[in-house]
């Protein structure tokens, strides 16, 4: 009776069953995209992809990425006592940090799944399964998309950690990743993006939720702008070139800035090049925009369109001072989304005397679950948020183009100035905030990026590019753990390779200083 012991699950699929139809492929593809939005297989948590860590705060993509890009900067500070979370703003993290561990684990998990998808999508496999014609073509096109997503995951890891674990579809499940240096990763990502740039659908032709050519170009532009950080060599001409490709593909700024960050921002595809989807009913996660809306809310949560405020995240006056000079509290810049029904923007409140007191600091009402119509999100309990998380927006491309040109890249300075003024005109609702060519300095661009892109996950990368993250050139409250701010060791430009990742994979080496 030995074969009586061969039992199989009723509901789970063996791989051959999972990939037996186009719908199966789409469901794996949905997981590849979805892994950037929710951390597991149950909305709100319960079946995490990566175990042993907190599903919402440590292994999803958006929230850990946000924590690591924003908390170490002037743009965000947290009141909570979650494990080591305060180490981020203090710039004092260690290689055993669980948040860092989760964010190290996530991109390579996504890559492993992408590699599996590519392996299951060869002509031979499709033939074997009788998938032909348009179905087969769709799957082959999806391979280009997942290659883009693999490049994106590697870019995020490279930006945070420098070197990183590396696998391609040639590495079957069970293979221990090798380590690639930042410049090796840069070369690989560049090669992949340039290849898929030609295969992906034309700009604005992909269906909602999926990437097109512009996404690949936008990532190239962003990567080239930071090439000095990644490979030690400037690539400003390339940055300007690729930013311009996107700009010229037919995008336009959405008239109202704040609508880019609310529940119906999926309609803002004129400006948003690619966003990670979130949905209050069907794509629920404590690690996506649900977190961004709740964490910034306190007792003023009705303003955010959610059912509660977690009284956690706010900004230092480093951010508000980009909008207000001295002790003024008014601006015509509509991007200054700092006032709520409970919190005013005033000099006293801007000071953070007590790190754990949510009332101290600059309150940010940028991410909400409100519809343009005034309605709240689709989750009637008000818990999960519908707002998508834009990864690339047109205004970032304007800023990249301008900065690349200012840094010596080949391009048109007047065109750059006109791009910046487009951003300014939207911000001010008129030309009153427009700048002149003399105002167009690199420091201005850095500040303008803070004004335009705050709380979207750019700030740490930007400060590193300007060498202001660890140095005393620019100090913000509680930088380095002291209220006046202080310079810290340059090692904090990169996050450490998690100690545990190294003990289970001896190919990995530690970043300097850790």
């Amino acid at each position, binding site marked *: *009776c*030995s074969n*009586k*012991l061969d*039992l*199989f*699950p*009723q*509901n*789970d*699929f063996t*791989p051959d069953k999972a990939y037996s139809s186009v719908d199966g492929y*789409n469901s794996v*593809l*949905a*997981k590849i*995209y979805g892994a950037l*939005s929710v951390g597991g*297989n*149950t*909305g709100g948590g319960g079946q995490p*992809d990566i*175990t*042993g*860590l907190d599903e919402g*705060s440590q292994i999803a993509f958006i929230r850990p990425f946000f924590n690591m890009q924003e908390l170490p900067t002037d743009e965000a500070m947290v009141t909570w*006592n*979650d*494990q080591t979370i305060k180490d981020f703003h203090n710039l*004092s*993290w*260690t290689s*055993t*940090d669980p948040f860092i561990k989760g964010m190290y*684990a996530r991109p390579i*998990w996504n890559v*492993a*799944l992408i590699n599996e998808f590519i392996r299951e999508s060869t002509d031979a496999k499709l033939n074997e399964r009788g998938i032909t014609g348009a179905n087969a073509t769709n799957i082959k096109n999806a391979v280009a998309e997942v290659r883009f997503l693999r490049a994106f995951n590697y870019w995020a890891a490279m930006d945070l950690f420098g070197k990183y*674990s590396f696998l391609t579809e040639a590495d079957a*499940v*069970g*293979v*221990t990743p090798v380590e690639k240096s930042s410049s090796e990763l840069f070369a690989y990502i560049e090669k992949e993006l340039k290849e898929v740039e030609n295969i992906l659908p034309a700009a604005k032709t992909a*269906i*909602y*939720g999926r990437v097109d050519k512009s996404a690949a170009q936008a990532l190239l532009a962003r990567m080239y702008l930071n090439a000095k950080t990644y490979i030690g060599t400037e690539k400003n001409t390339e940055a300007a070139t690729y930013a311009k490709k996107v700009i010229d593909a037919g995008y336009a700024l959405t008239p109202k800035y704040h609508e880019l960050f609310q529940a119906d921002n999926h309609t803002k595809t004129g400006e948003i090049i690619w966003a990670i*989807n979130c949905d209050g009913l*069907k*794509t*629920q*996660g404590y690690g996506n925009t649900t977190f961004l809306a709740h964490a910034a809310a306190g007792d003023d*949560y*009705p303003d955010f369109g959610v059912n*509660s405020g977690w009284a956690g995240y706010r900004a230092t006056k480093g951010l508000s001072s980009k909008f207000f000079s001295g002790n003024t509290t008014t601006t015509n810049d509509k991007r200054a989304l700092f006032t709520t029904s409970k919190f005013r923007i005033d000099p006293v409140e801007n000071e953070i005397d007590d790190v*754990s*007191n949510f*009332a101290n600091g600059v309150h940010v009402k940028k991410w909400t679950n409100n519809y343009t119509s005034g309605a709240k999100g689709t989750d009637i309990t008000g818990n999960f948020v519908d707002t998508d998380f834009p990864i690339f927006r047109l205004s970032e491309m304007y800023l990249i183009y301008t900065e690349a040109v200012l840094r010596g890249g080949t391009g048109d300075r007047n065109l750059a100035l006109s791009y910046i003024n487009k951003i300014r005109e939207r911000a001010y609702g008129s030309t009153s905030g427009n700048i002149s060519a003399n105002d167009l300095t690199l420091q201005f661009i850095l500040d303008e990026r803070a004004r335009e892109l705050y709380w979207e996950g750019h700030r740490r990368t930007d400060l590193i590019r300007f060498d202001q993250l660890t140095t005393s050139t620019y100090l913000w409250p509680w930088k380095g753990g002291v209220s006046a701010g202080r310079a810290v060791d340059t090692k904090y430009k990169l996050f450490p390779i998690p100690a545990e990742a190294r*003990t*289970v*994979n001896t190919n990995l080496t530690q970043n300097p200083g850790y």
Partner: protein
Amino acid sequence: QRTITGKVTDATDKSELIGVTVSVKGTTVGTQTDVSGNYSIAVPNNQAILVFSFIGKTSKEVVVGTQTAINVALVDDSKILDEVVVVAYGTSKKADLTGSIIAVNAKDFQKGNIQSSEQLLQGKVAGLQVTSGGGSAGGGSTIRIRGTASLNASNDPLIVIDGIPVEGNGIAGSANLLNTINPNDIESMSVLKDASAAALYGSRASNGVIIITTKKGSSGKPTFNFNTAVSAGQVFTKVDVLTGDQVREIINARAAQTGDNTYKNLLGTENTDWQDQIFRTAIGTDNNLSAGGTYKKVPFRVSLGYSNQNGILKTNNFNRTSGAINLSPKFLDNALAVNVNLKLANTNNRFADEGAIGSALRMDPTKPVMTDNPYGGYYQWLDGQGKYKQLSGFNPLGLLEQRDNTSTVNRLIGNIELDYKLPFLPDLHLRTNLGLDNTKGSGTDLINALSATNYLTSGRLTDYKQSKSNKLWDVSLFYEKDLVGIKSKIDVLALHSYQDFVTNVYNFPAYSADGKTIIPGTEPIFATDKPQYRLDSYLGRINYSFMGKYLATASIRRDASSKFSPATRVGYFPAVALAWKVRDDIFKNSKIVSDMKLRVGYGVTGQQDFGQFYPYLARYAQSTATAQYQFGDKFYTFYRPAAYDANISWETTTTKNLALDFGFANNRINGTVELFQKDTKDLLATVPVAYGSTFDINLFTNVGSLTNKGVEVVLNTTPIKKDKLRWDLGFNFTRNNTEITALRKQEDPNFTGIPVSGISGGTGNSIGLHAIGQWPYTYYVFQQVYDENGTPLEGVYVDRNKDGQINDSDRYLFQKPAPSMLFGVSTSVNYNKFTFSASGHAMVGNYLYNNLQSERSVLRNLIDPLLVINNATTLLTKTNFFNNRYLSDYYIENASFFRLDNINVGYYVGKVFGNTTLSLNASVNNVFFVTKYSGLDPENSSATGVDNTIYPRPRVYTFGLNFDF
């Protein structure tokens, strides 16, 4: 017809025996001895045979002949060594045991109000730790035999009920599957501790085995027993939280100091003790009727029980109706022995929302219980729009009274054993055991539409349902031979066993409270699921005895489990044990040494009991309706690959056991000293693997090893044994040491360990570490710094690595949750018609992380940033911490304790009417405990040692009547 009179005495101490049953064999005539041991009975003729029987004594039969007065002395059958003990696949005389097996009979069970059978063994067996999960009605316990042997697989012992290894895991609707067995139906429980005893159950015996044997029919005319008891349980410990006045004082003082009246304005005027609001005196009853004897040559026992128990937490209730039938007829000139058992139980549970206990500690004591609001009048914090303020605490009374979670669990355990002596070779028996264990659980959880918890969906109604079916088929040959010529006895067992475990899971959507609207996102992806596993086993055992004093046992079991791949599923589990009756050789004529036996055993057991059913298979799982991704206008569910280990296989434990059994002074002092070592290798553990190499950073695989060694001492004494007065005193002690010896496939000096033991408060905080060279779940904390008065300084820790900053690298390993030592003590005094007994147990060296204090003793609790006031524990007034300092070692507390489990007083009334005798008993369970631990109760059933808000164990007073007729 004439009358015989006489007196029945105790053969040892000549005391008169009260209540001895005297009957005429083969008739229904019978009587009992009176207070002086005298009886009088009518006999039909001189051929009549009188049968004298009494619990604890060997029955005696006397042919009447011409006598008119017959005085009888009954011999103790606590001539312990003749006691028959139930062992794996059979029975054995206690004297002939080679392995470590402790049998506890009904008369020695824990007394008083016991709802769940495992609690009968509390403190009774060295090396056995029974820790109830709390005081809920019908709630279960964690059972550990000789500590823990596994990290991520089960550490629960295998439970065998009348030969059927039963499903240990729970079922929907049941707090505890063992509560379906009526403790009154249990005759004995054998605890198999070492591998030589347990290896016969091979694959599932790594954590020891508990064999539960239910009561059987006896010879003689049917007798009846009826017992009834009523009990009352009370909370006797509460958490010290601030009163309304204290909260007002602190907040007012703070407002005066800071000039900020935000929180002052939130204060109420009450002094509500929320704990008083949720607890009550819990009344329970327990009634059992049984009949046993022989009817038309068929020995039988039938019983009926009804128990109804309220929990001390309002709304909590458990009731059980149970029935059991045993028939043990013999056919074909006694060549075919049949044993049929059928046990049925219907249990009904009403689960209280135990979140109310934590809520009662958190809710603002300055507020009233009830008020005018949309939430059924239960006071809640409201936001500016008059709606429940999300994330603020829930009204604890509302949690209880606005929720009705009731379930029904029906269980049937039945088996038929046949034992056929082959006519041509009567030493050879062909045996078979067919068993079935069927359980169905279902229930409905209804949250009122007005409840603040689910107001936004107009309440919540969820159905749940599961059924489990466990089928067993054993076939065996048993050969037994007395080889008188070579002074040897031998018996051999060969067995094949096949077991199939099926669970049927039914999934339902959640509805609004009126049952009409499906709550979005709650539709299940699959209406059903059917996890299943099977075991196919062969077993051989040989027992050999030479000159009655040199004993040997050897066995081997081959198990195949469907949980492993065809290449790895077979495991072999051998065991061997030797025993030498030292007394028979060396102390043969000693007056002092009445018994001495040396035992040594070695064996290997396996483990495959863990939560997964197909851990070796590559597979994709579908996501729920709330985890999908939108492409175009369509949402797609996720297919997610699981991490798997194609080569996963058995975890094995090798046990070595060395023991000395002794008895002195006619066994008035007897006991055992035992040394054991358990080495577990190929641990089924979830450990980190190279990130990216599979679909998780942790993999459930065979890795690492763990060692568990210890000493057990059992000492039973009878300090006084006189006419009418007997005092017994028993004591057991266990010293245990567990150490993780490896956690990695390769050695790695940089590996600190695996973080474990998640805590409440903050997100993702964990307080423990599995680390090499340490006990499992050793705490991993910061070292607190104190001022000169011994008050902890908030957030100040020792810079242990002296790098000038305090960060994660300064955490250190400090203490562990498991006890180093266990003690059990029990005593009984019999004087005339009175009995008195008491028992208690203790643990030493167990530490708890007091999560309640770390979370709820800071000022931030009172002035919550959500702009609500929560309560705090009174520790706040001592530490004055503002913020939570979760990872400080300040909250690791010594939780060593002694608990007096039970005091019982019994009185034998004697005949009350006709042949009916009555005895009375009164008990107190959970009398008191002594500890330094500052939490509610130092006894914690969780492996991680994180102590939050336990359901308090009540002190229970029970009064019972017992009728025999």
